[in-house]
C-alpha cells in the first residue's frame, strides 16, 4: 500500500470515559459494546454465570469491562483498560480510567491519546466536584471534544428540566475553565436510551444519539493546519546489502507527528540547522508522493547530512523553538515524590535529555483549582514546574501541538516513567 486509502469509513476515533464510581461508566461501555454487537456469545455467557454467582438477576453489563483477577476479587478497578468496537464505518478505541485515589494519574494517562472525552454525570446528583475535576483534567490534556452524558435519566422520570439544569450548571463553570467545545446528551445506560438506539423515553431530546456523535466526531487531534514535525526514530543504512544501488541509501525513519510533507519541499534538520530538500518519501522501500499526519514513513534527503535518532526534520518555513529551559505543567505519576536535588531524564519525541528542576511555581488542587505554594510533588499532583535541560529540545507549546509539547520524566535508577508534562 502506498498513499493512504481513500476511505468511505471515518477511520479511527480514540475516546475516554470518565465518571465517579457508580455513575454508570462500566454499564455505558458495556451498552456500547452490546448494542454494536461487539460482545460475543461466550463472553456473554461468562458474564451471565458471574452475574448469577453474585446474585444478580439481569445480566450486569458492567462486568464486561472488569479487568484483572486481583481487581475482580477486590471488586474495584484500577489503571487504564482499553476496549475496542467497530461500527463498520469506524473503529473505536475506548480508554477506560476508573476512579479512586490514583485517579488523576490514570485519567491523564488515558486522556493523553484521546480525541474525545465522555464525562458522565448522574442525573440525580448533578454537577459534582468530581465532574469539575474530570473536566479540568480533560481540558488540561487538551482533549478537543468534550461530551457531558447525563446518565440514569430513568431515575429522574426522564425529566427534561433536570437535564437543562445540569447543562446550565456545567456551562457556568466550563466558561471559567475556558472549555469551548462541549456537548450534552441525556441517557440511560441501563435501558439503552440514546446510547445506540434512541428509545422512546427521551422524545423531547432532538439531538443525535451518543453513537451518532461519536461517528461524526473528527478523528484528527486538531482541525487546524499544524506544522510539519518529524522526529527521527531510526536511520536505515543498508550498505551491507548485495545491491550496489543501496550503497548510498540513507533513510530517516519516523512518524509524521503533525502536518504533511511532499517530495521536493525544503526542510531543516535540527539541531544542526542544515537545510536540504526532500528527495523521496517511502514506506517499506516504495515511493509515495506525500506523507500526512500520523503516517510512519522513511525520508530521503537531497544532501548528505549527518542525522541520528533524536534529531528532528521540520519544514524550513515553520520551525519549532529550540530551548534549554521549559516551563511546564506536570502530573506526577510515581509513588516516590519528586526530588528537587536529583537529575532526571526527559523523553520528548525521540529525544532524551538530562533535566533538573529549576522551580516549582505552585501545585493545583484539582478539586478547587486553587493554586498552592509547594516544593514537593506527590503522586497525582498537578503542578507548574520549570526544568533546566542539559541539551536543547525542539518544542511547540502543547496547546498548539500535542506531539512536540508533551514529554515524560524517567527515573534513571529504576527506569520508571514517573512524570508526564506539557510545555507552555
Amino acid at each position, binding site marked *: 500500500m502506498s498513499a*493512504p486509502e481513500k476511505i468511505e469509513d*471515518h477511520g479511527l476515533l480514540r475516546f475516554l470515559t470518565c465518571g465517579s464510581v457508580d455513575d454508570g461508566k462500566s454499564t455505558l461501555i458495556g451498552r456500547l459494546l452490546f448494542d454494536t454487537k461487539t460482545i460475543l456469545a461466550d463472553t456473554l455467557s461468562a458474564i451471565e454465570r458471574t452475574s448469577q454467582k453474585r446474585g444478580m438477576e439481569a445480566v450486569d453489563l458492567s462486568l464486561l469491562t472488569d479487568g484483572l483477577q486481583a481487581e475482580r476479587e477486590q471488586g474495584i478497578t484500577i489503571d487504564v483498560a482499553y476496549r*475496542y468496537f467497530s461500527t463498520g464505518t469506524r473503529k473505536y478505541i475506548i480508554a477506560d480510567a476508573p476512579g479512586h485515589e490514583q485517579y488523576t494519574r490514570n485519567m491523564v494517562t488515558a486522556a493523553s491519546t484521546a480525541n474525545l472525552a465522555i464525562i458522565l454525570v448522574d442525573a440525580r446528583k448533578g454537577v459534582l466536584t468530581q465532574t469539575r475535576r474530570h473536566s479540568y483534567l480533560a481540558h488540561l490534556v487538551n482533549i478537543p471534544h468534550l461530551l457531558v452524558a447525563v446518565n440514569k435519566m430513568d431515575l429522574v422520570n426522564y425529566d427534561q428540566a433536570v437535564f437543562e439544569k445540569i447543562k446550565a450548571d456545567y456551562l457556568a463553570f466550563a466558561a471559567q475553565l475556558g472549555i469551548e467545545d462541549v456537548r450534552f446528551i441525556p441517557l440511560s445506560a441501563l435501558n439503552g436510551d440514546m446510547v445506540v438506539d434512541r428509545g422512546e423515553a427521551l422524545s423531547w431530546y432532538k439531538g443525535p444519539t451518543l453513537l451518532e456523535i461519536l461517528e461524526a466526531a473528527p478523528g484528527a487531534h486538531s482541525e487546524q493546519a499544524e506544522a510539519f514535525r518529524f522526529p527521527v526514530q531510526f536511520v536505515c543504512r543498508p550498505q551491507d546489502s548485495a545491491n550496489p544501488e543501496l550503497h548510498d541509501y540513507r533513510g530517516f525513519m519516523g512518524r509524521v507527528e503533525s502536518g504533511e510533507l511532499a517530495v521536493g519541499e525544503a526542510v531543516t534538520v535540527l539541531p544542526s540547522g542544515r537545510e536540504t530538500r526532500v528527495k523521496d518519501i517511502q514506506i517499506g522501500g516504495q515511493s509515495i508522493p506525500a506523507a500526512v499526519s500520523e503516517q510512519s514513513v522513511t525520508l530521503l534527503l537531497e544532501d548528505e547530512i549527518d542525522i541520528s535518532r533524536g534529531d528532528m526534520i521540520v519544514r524550513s518555513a515553520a520551525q519549532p523553538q529550540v530551548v534549554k529551559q521549559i516551563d511546564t505543567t506536570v502530573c506526577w505519576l510515581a509513588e516516590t515524590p519528586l526530588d528537587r536535588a536529583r537529575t532526571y531524564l526527559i523523553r520528548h519525541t525521540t529525544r532524551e535529555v538530562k533535566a533538573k528542576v529549576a522551580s516549582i511555581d505552585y501545585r493545583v488542587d484539582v478539586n478547587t483549582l486553587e493554586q498552592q505554594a509547594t516544593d514537593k510533588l506527590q503522586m497525582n499532583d498537578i503542578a507548574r514546574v520549570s526544568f533546566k535541560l542539559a541539551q536543547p529540545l525542539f518544542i511547540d507549546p502543547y496547546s498548539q501541538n500535542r506531539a512536540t509539547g508533551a514529554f515524560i520524566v524517567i527515573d534513571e535508577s529504576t527506569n520508571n516513567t514517573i512524570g508526564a508534562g506539557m510545555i507552555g
Partner: protein
Amino acid sequence: MTTLTKQTLSHLDWLEAEAIHIMREVAGQCANPVLLFSGGKDSICMLRIAEKAFRPGRFPFPLMHIDTGHNYQEVVEFRDKRAAELGERLIVRSVEDSMKRGTVVLKHEGESRNKHQSVTLLEAIEEFGFDCCIGGARRDEEKARAKERIMSFRDEFGQWDPKNQRPELWNLYNARAHKGENIRAFPISNWTEMDVWQYIEREGLELPSIYFAHTRPVVMRQGAIVPVNVPLVSGELTNLPKAGEEIIDLQVRFRTVGDISCTAPVESDADTVEKIVLETATTTITERGATRLDDQTSEASMEQRKKEGYF
C-alpha cells in the same frame, strides 16, 4: 463539533502506522531485540509491518520461534519458508530441549506444552541476551490483556507484575531496562481479530493452509472439536483418539494456531481470506473461547501464565 475536514488515515493505515512506529521505537531504544515469529496469523502481520518499517534495510532483529515440538507441520513449514523468503535469521528453540535439560517437566505425557513455552523463552532470552521480545499479542484477545502496556516490563525472572507497569502517555514509549530485565513490546496491541483478517486481505498475505477450510479427522470432546491423528513434523501421529470416541471427517479451519494439544478448529467452509473476513464479521464466539482449550479452565488463566513469564 465540526465535521471531518482533515485528511485522516483509514483505520488499517492508522493501525499499521502505529505498529511501525512501535517497532522502530524498539529498534531505536533497545540494544538486542528479537521478534517472536510462530508462523501464526498475528506474527505474519508483524513480519509485513517489519518490512514496511525497515526495508530496504534488513530487520534490526532476528526472528525467534519457541517450538513446543507439537506444532502443526503446515505451520512449521510455513515458518521456515517465510523466514527464508525474507532472508532474515530465524532462531528456533524447543520446549523438548528444555525437557531434556530437565527445566521443563510435564505432569503427564499429554499435558499441553503451551504454558511451558515460558521456560524455554526465558532460557533463550538468557542465552542470546535479548533485552526486548516483540510479540503479536492483542489487547482484545483476553480480559487480562486489556490493561497490558505496549511496552510491558518483565523483571529478572521474566515475571509480569500488573501492579508494577509503567504508565504510557501519548506515543512516548519507555523501553529502558537494566541488564537481565526484559521488555515485551506489542506493536499490534490495538488490533482486533477483525483488523488482522482485514489487513491480511488488504496486503494479500500468505498463510499456512490450516487457516482455511479443509477436511480432517476430529472427535467431539466436551463440546469442543478436537483434531485427532495429527502428524507431527517427524511423521509420528499425535492426539490419538480415546477409546470409544467416534472419529468424524469434518470441514474445519483454525482461528489460531498453536500447540496441537490445545488449539481447536471451528467448523467452517471459508476457504478464502474474503470468506474468513465475512465469517469473522458475523461470528458469535470469541477467538479464544472457540479455539483455546487451555483457556477455558479459568477465566483468569492467562493472567496466571503471564505472571509466570508467558508472552
